[in-house]
């Protein structure tokens, strides 16, 4: 049995293609990856700054210092850990290739409130605004047309195949 392409499928597929094309176009207005140098100072019981915001694809270098006792830096999601002693700075370089919000926490027991020594790294998805809107609208339009056409065909089929009288 050959599977012939129905009209609603064709329309939906073309809209899907459009969404893909929009997505695949080089992100002209997206912020290009930049080098970011962040200085984080760890003290009892906080990181300063406690929140870092970067874009996906950025090359992030964290210059880590400790001011009172030995602290650690563990970044959830990326999964790396670094000890830091007061006076001896450490550098962590990585590419923020995962979007989302990730906690960084102290990895060396540093005192009574050590479990609460948490900060967060926000990696923005770095999708340009117009592209996000284009993808959402073309997907929504494709979906609506598909449903509308499919509904038309189905009701047609129902009408054609209905031989039994209804009660």
């Amino acid at each position, binding site marked *: 049995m050959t599977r012939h392409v129905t009209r609603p499928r064709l329309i939906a597929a073309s809209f899907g293609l459009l969404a893909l094309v929009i997505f695949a176009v080089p992100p002209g207005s997206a912020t290009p990856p930049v080098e970011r140098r962040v200085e984080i100072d760890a003290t009892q019981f906080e990181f300063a700054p406690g929140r870092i915001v970067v874009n996906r694809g950025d090359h992030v270098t964290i210059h880590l210092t400790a001011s009172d006792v030995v602290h650690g830096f563990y970044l959830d999601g990326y999964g790396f850990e670094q000890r830091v002693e*007061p*006076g001896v700075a450490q550098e962590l370089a990585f590419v923020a290739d995962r979007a989302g919000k990730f906690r960084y926490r102290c990895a060396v027991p540093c005192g009574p409130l050590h479990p609460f020594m948490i900060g967060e790294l926000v990696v923005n998805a770095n999708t340009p605004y117009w592209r996000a809107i284009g993808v959402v609208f073309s997907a929504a339009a494709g979906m609506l047309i598909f449903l509308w056409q499919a509904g038309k065909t189905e009701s047609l089929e129902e009408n054609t195949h209905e031989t039994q009288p209804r009660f």
Partner: protein
Amino acid sequence: MKQRELLALFALGLILLGLPLAVLGYQYWLRPALSPNRIIDIAARVPEQAGFAPDAIRVAVGETVTLRFASMDVTHGVAIGPGLGVDLGPIDPGQVKEITLSFDHPGIYTYYCTTWCSPDHWRMRGTIQVSDPANPDVVPAAQPDRVIEALIAEGIDIDAAHTPPAEHADISILAFQPSAQRGELVIAGGLDVPAELRDPVWRQSHTPAQALELLTGQNPATSERDRLDAIAYLWTQDTADEALATGKRFYNQNCAACHGQSGGGDGPAAATTAEEPVAFSDPGYMFERRSDVLYAKIRRGGMGTGMPNFGTLFTPEETWALVRYLWTLTFGTPPRTHTG
């Protein structure tokens, strides 16, 4: 029913009494009984909470002891000196690190914290007194330090104020950082270096400013920058790679918290000291310093400045390694194309 109650009571007793007894019994009776040598448990707390407990240990010559260091609050580090080469590294809270030692000669050794742990971190020290079993009450005498004695005989005030003398104020060394790398090229390019400047012993007891005067007298036509770079090169020449690595390790463990990792005098603990920590990366300061005075300051400490003494922790060789590392903070890493 009666029997079951007795059984429950027995189980309760086992939990409430048996468990602590087993733990403490192992700690204080079973382990010492099984160990072939004496075990000393040392608890490490920040100095505000009394530092090491105990902070004085007496050992006889030839006796083997096991020291077990446990950290009770924040991360500490333990090393024992001088000259034992014992560095247990960082000890996190809850961690226990042990070392078994025996001593051949009477003497006094110091175990000390190697990680900045509180504003009073440098007070965190304990002593091991190794005494002769024949006369255990004799306190081993400290070895006199020839370099410091020579300085005192010379009439040098080790605690003199840090301000540079006025006659060198016109040196434009603050305009740029003298570079040992460039100095090598200058000397290879035919700069006439006086014989004294080639002598490591002379360099040890003279300041770069004095060397500059000699060099200028010999080479009046050269640029000041060339002369300063040449001095930077000469002053970083006495360093073997291993000594430099030792110096760097000791510096990062013991000095960086106040003096800063790259010698800027800007470590995180700089604000806690009585006097501002000096900046070794400042050529204006270092041009007026003598290596042997720096050595003496490290070993003896700075009176009233907050600079602790390290003479009881390091051997003279280790102290020299540290001094040589200090010069590289001023003048950069010595070129490694040839030695001497």
